[in-house]
């Protein structure tokens, strides 16, 4: 009996390790392939002689990218959107979530419903687009002609994130707050000195969610930002992809690297900063699901 038991365990263990290794490699492979593709020679890329490692190494594709002002422009724009967008969204969310977490708030149920309803029902793309056009008009009339501010202020707010914060704030013991109030703290001081420090990890998770959705934002940025100098990185990558994968447009291509290498180089450039910060934020990212999955 003991022997048979070990065999079934062993078989399952072997299957686990094999399949997990395969899946993990599948997750990693496209990135390695992209790096190899970016620095391999033209013939190697065009006639798919690369499987894993680069061949006839060149860095021309990268240097072409780095010498492109538009590329740096796009990068700066994405940083702008990510930083300001996260700060704005997080600020509004923290204030709102704090108020909603208070039992003494009048019409609390109504405000909660006001929020949650936006998770159930969305007006759809066309009404949103018309609404953003109106907003753009209003912003222009106010003298804000940079469409990036429209993207920062009008987009990316998420009811789910506010609810995550609200739940975290509700979990803060009220004794500490009462002690602070006895010591003469105002509402804002209670928030900044008690609640925010005590829910640091949820705030970090929510900030990460906002930052990622800003960094990755594509559709609305492409629709609303007309000036190509203001395009964020994702839009820039997409436009380049559309340009360089058109076989007819690329017929006259004569560089020592393949036109595909440009795409791979771009992909690598957009992933590298994420890979650098990934180990530091991964734990908050993983925490986020457990917090967000099931509540109340």
């Amino acid at each position, binding site marked *: 009996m003991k022997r048979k038991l070990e065999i079934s365990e062993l078989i399952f263990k072997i299957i686990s390790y094999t399949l*997990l290794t395969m899946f993990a490699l599948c*997750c990693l492979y496209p990135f390695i392939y992209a790096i190899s593709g970016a620095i391999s020679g033209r013939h190697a890329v065009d006639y798919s002689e690369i499987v894993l490692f680069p061949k006839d190494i060149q860095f021309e594709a990268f240097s072409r990218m780095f010498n492109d002002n538009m590329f740096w422009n796009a990068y700066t724009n994405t940083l702008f959107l990510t930083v300001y967008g996260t700060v704005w969204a997080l*600020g509004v969310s923290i204030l709102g979530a704090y108020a909603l977490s208070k039992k003494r708030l009048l019409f609390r149920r109504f405000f909660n419903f006001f929020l949650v309803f936006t998770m159930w029902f969305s*007006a*759809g*793309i066309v009404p949103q687009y018309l609404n953003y056009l109106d907003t753009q008009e209003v912003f222009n009339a106010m003298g804000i002609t940079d469409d990036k501010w429209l993207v920062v202020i009008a987009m990316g*707010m998420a009811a789910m994130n506010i609810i995550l914060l609200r739940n975290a704030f509700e979990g803060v013991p009220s004794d500490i707050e009462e002690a602070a109030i006895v010591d003469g703290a105002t509402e804002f001081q209670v928030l900044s000195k008690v609640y925010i420090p005590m829910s640091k990890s949820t705030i970090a998770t929510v900030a990460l969610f906002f930052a990622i959705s800003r960094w990755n934002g594509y559709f609305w940025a492409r629709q609303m930002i007309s000036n190509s100098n203001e395009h964020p990185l994702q839009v820039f990558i997409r436009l380049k992809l559309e340009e360089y994968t058109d*076989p007819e447009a690329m017929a006259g291509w004569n560089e020592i690297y393949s036109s595909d290498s440009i795409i791979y180089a771009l992909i690598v450039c957009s992933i590298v900063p994420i890979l650098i910060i*990934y180990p530091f934020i991964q734990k908050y990212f993983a925490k986020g699901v457990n917090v967000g999955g099931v509540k109340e």
Partner: protein
Amino acid sequence: MKKTLAGDFLVYDKSSKTYRADPEQLVRDDVEKHYWRNVLRTMAKDWRLYLMLVPMILVFLFWRYFPMYELLRCFKVADEVKPVSEQFFSGFSYFKRLLVSGDGLSTEFWRALRNTFLLSFYGLVFGFPVPVILALFFNEIKSDILRSAYQVLTYLPKFISTVVMTSLVTMLVKQGSLTSNMGILSQVLYSMGLIGHEVAYAGLLNNPDFFRAIYQISGIWETAGYDSIVFFAAIIAISPTSYEAAQIDGANKMAQMKYVVLPSILSTLVIMLITRIGSLLQVGYEKVLLLYNTNTYVTADVVSTFAQRYGLGSSSAQGLASAAEMMSNVISMLLVIGANTISRKASDVSLY
């Protein structure tokens, strides 16, 4: 003194042997009469708290609720100059046109609705089990370092933006041409004999038969690792003594799975499944938009991309496009609310 008619509002005063108005009722009356004044007073006393709420309310009002007003277009005659409020009512003509007219547009709408449903349905059938299985596998690895390594690798694709992910997919299955070979993945599939040379050479993304498979596989690649976190958390919470007890009773691996692991993660499974069913009509339109092209509309076009194609292109079709998306959004909302109600009944866990 306030006059009262019903005896309920009077109390008998023993000292003076007369009836007088119930003081509590007077307070209640007073509260009722001055309800809004009291509300305002409370708010004014606590003004800091209500001030904090203002930015959030404004943001949601301006950019979540005002668009809903634009939905009135669904019932109005299209007009390029007038705002919605001044357009003439056209009743349900757009809805009729989309649902029952049977012309080209109507067929296209039904196709989009069907594709939307099928894309999420296949996502549920093929995508849902993978994270659960991954979580079971993670549990088999006893070394923390090795397990973290596996987890970090499998979460990685979730960090990549939709644009980059679809760019990678496009490059992996791209079409061949005179000067360059087809994508590496197409070549692998071709050399394994799974697809013909013609098909691979023309580019898999140009072939409607492959769109769903590409969409699902890239979706699993992207999210399976990350989605496994919640199941893994449920599995790791199982006490080791449960396994030991099962082992002593002679349970082999399959029996342990069935009698120890499954019951422990069942509630998580059910909740996640209900959530997925609730979002059956919500398809990531950005990904579809980035992967589809005119050749693959047959299987790839979803309601959102349909609305986007018609509504953002010309202003005369805005009402029609909004009508299309509104129908799917209303069904979607009912599904979400239904799922949430079932989840609350089944497990005392409300998702919102």
